[in-house]
């Protein structure tokens, strides 16, 4: 039994197809969804998402979003969904450093700038995490 998986970002449909299982980071902790999971709606945080389909394993960096499990259809909406080869390590590290520097002065920041910096930081952390784990 396979599940129908769809991963959607505001820019594109990042994955659409069958899978055996998918592991994703929710706000409550990491969960793995297999076929015949009960209907579920949950929120996601930044981190690593992993699709397993047969012998193939596809890791992705994701950041914030929602997951809906309905029968064997899974819809994942997230801000980013990047595969390992799409991630630019240098850029991610640079972004993390920049965002961390920005957040040091958070007392003087506007709400929007703060949210922006946090979002950049979370995205770069997710990217770096996936890279570190998969490059070994």
């Amino acid at each position, binding site marked *: 039994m396979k599940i129908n998986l*769809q991963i*959607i*970002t*505001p*820019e*594109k*449909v990042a994955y659409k197809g069958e899978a055996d299982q998918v592991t994703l980071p*929710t*706000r*409550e902790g990491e969960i793995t969804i297999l076929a015949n999971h*009960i*209907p*579920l*709606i*949950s*929120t996601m945080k930044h981190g690593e998402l992993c699709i397993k389909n047969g012998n193939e394993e596809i890791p992705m960096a994701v950041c914030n979003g*929602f997951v*809906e499990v*309905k*029968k064997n259809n899974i*819809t994942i*909406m997230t*801000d980013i969904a990047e595969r390992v080869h799409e991630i630019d390590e240098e850029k991610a590290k640079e972004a993390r450093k920049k965002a961390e520097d920005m957040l040091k002065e958070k007392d003087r920041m506007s*709400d*929007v700038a703060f*949210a*922006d910096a946090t*979002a950049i930081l979370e995205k770069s952390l997710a990217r770096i995490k996936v890279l570190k784990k998969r490059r070994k």
Partner: protein
Amino acid sequence: MQSTQQIRRQIQSTKNTSQITKAMEMVAASKMKKSQERALMARPYAMAALGILESVSESVEPKKHILLRKREVKNLCLLVVTSDKGLCGGLNSNILKEAKKIIKKEKDKNITIIAIGKKTENYFKNKNEVCAVFNAIGDTIELRETLPISKIIIEDFTNRKYDKVIAIYTNFISTIKQEVKVKKLLPITRRSIEETIEEIEDKQEKEETNSNNIEYKFEPSAEKVLCDLLPNLIETQVYHIILESNASEHSARMVAMKNATDSALEILDDLKLSYNYIRQQKITQEISEISAGVAAQEG
């Protein structure tokens, strides 16, 4: 009768104009392709967000969240989306016409405008209360860049600065067809969700959305999911609206410029014809003068 010199000058300037419009057409065409793609790519996301909201709203009492609550409308906010630049046919004037119509209809209410694009700003500057202006939104807009707009809408709605938010924008249908769309953004109601879903589905292959009678488990809780989801939904919709408007703008501009080039070429043909006519006439006259002169000398 015009002199040949005059006509020649006209021909030259028409030629130049047609070259410029041709170039603008090319630019618009390439931008159009990109923005159309982006608008189409963003649709599944908007769709998924609405789908999840629909599932959630079945399990949660809609009165629970302020963004879902309907209240008496005293203050109305219009989000009017036009382009920064002109020369794109009737696109902007259609939007402004629609906005004017709504303002006239709702004149007993307090109306605030959020202007997106220079054309809206210029139009409403001295007429209505404009609370925010967003200009120079690029063609390669990202979701992040539209967040300030949605933030203003959500915050002011929550603080009861206005009781209803309506967006007026151009919906992209095809390269030659765009239509003015009036969409209620806030409060979010079942009906407005369903309408939006239908609208997007019209343009895409219909996917199965049989979510009836499924008991969802919510993590952490339905309320929490809702609190996260609703602002996200508004953000997505605003982003979507701007992408659609962008795609429409470039398509409209391309078509307008193509028409301009075509009519320039037509005028050019006419001018060339009358130029040759006059030239021919002149030659004929000269020849007859010469031959008359020769005839006079011989005789």
